[in-house]
């Protein structure tokens, strides 16, 4: 997990085993609070499949982050993964997505601009 400015970057590189997915979710919540991050980017460029378990983790993580005052953007979803997720019945309605890391960071930067200035 990398922190760039106010943003935590999580890049998923390994084949996800269920227990690892759950640990990641817990770690991320703790890191948001510890670091005071206002945004989270989850990069799934390297992820070949997202099944209902991982899909649910993405949705839950987005919801948890929101409660901790951080916005989540999932970036880098492969076309085949998007097609499969929709057919599976998971459209991840509550999860903001962007095609690339750059676009994801842009979304989070815009959100920060709209926050009231700190006195």
């Amino acid at each position, binding site marked *: 997990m990398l922190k760039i400015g106010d943003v935590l970057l999580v890049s998923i590189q390994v084949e996800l*085993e269920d227990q690892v997915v759950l640990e990641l979710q817990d770690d991320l919540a703790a890191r948001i609070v510890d670091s005071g991050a206002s945004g989270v980017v989850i990069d799934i460029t390297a992820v070949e*499949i997202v099944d209902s378990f991982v*899909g649910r983790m993405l949705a839950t993580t987005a919801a948890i982050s929101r409660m901790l005052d951080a916005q989540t953007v999932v970036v880098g979803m492969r076309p085949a993964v998007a097609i499969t997720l929709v057919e599976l019945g998971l459209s991840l309605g509550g999860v903001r997505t962007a095609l690339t890391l750059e676009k994801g960071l842009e979304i989070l930067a815009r959100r920060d601009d709209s926050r009231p200035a700190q006195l």
Partner: protein
Amino acid sequence: MSGLAPVPDAEHESVPIGSNDDVVRARQLVRALAQQCKLSLVDQTKLVTAASELARNTLVYGGGGVMRVGLVHRDGRVGVTAVFEDSGPGIPDVDQALTDGWTSGGGLGLGLSGARRLVDDFTLQTEVGGGTQVAITKWAR
């Protein structure tokens, strides 16, 4: 349990499914075969995702079991068949279990119904107290 589902050729491989690591291994094996029979990238992804759902069901609801997987041939076409078997409690109401959003556990209730949508052939045999067998096939186009 009498297996009427399409059973892969003699060269099929068996993988025990007793842990989360086994679910990952099952996925990898299905992916390798999907690539071998030249499924499109989208079809590979759909098949591996369906296999992941069913392997997890075998582990979580069936209390563990086995996956058999191999290439199958029919009418000049080639495909990948994976059969997931457990000797768990079985499914009392199959129609209900195949309904989107219905779950007996903590999941989303998309595993079984979603997996069925992602593949070409899907058969489910189950007996209360006698286990469950789910067979899926994806054919190369």
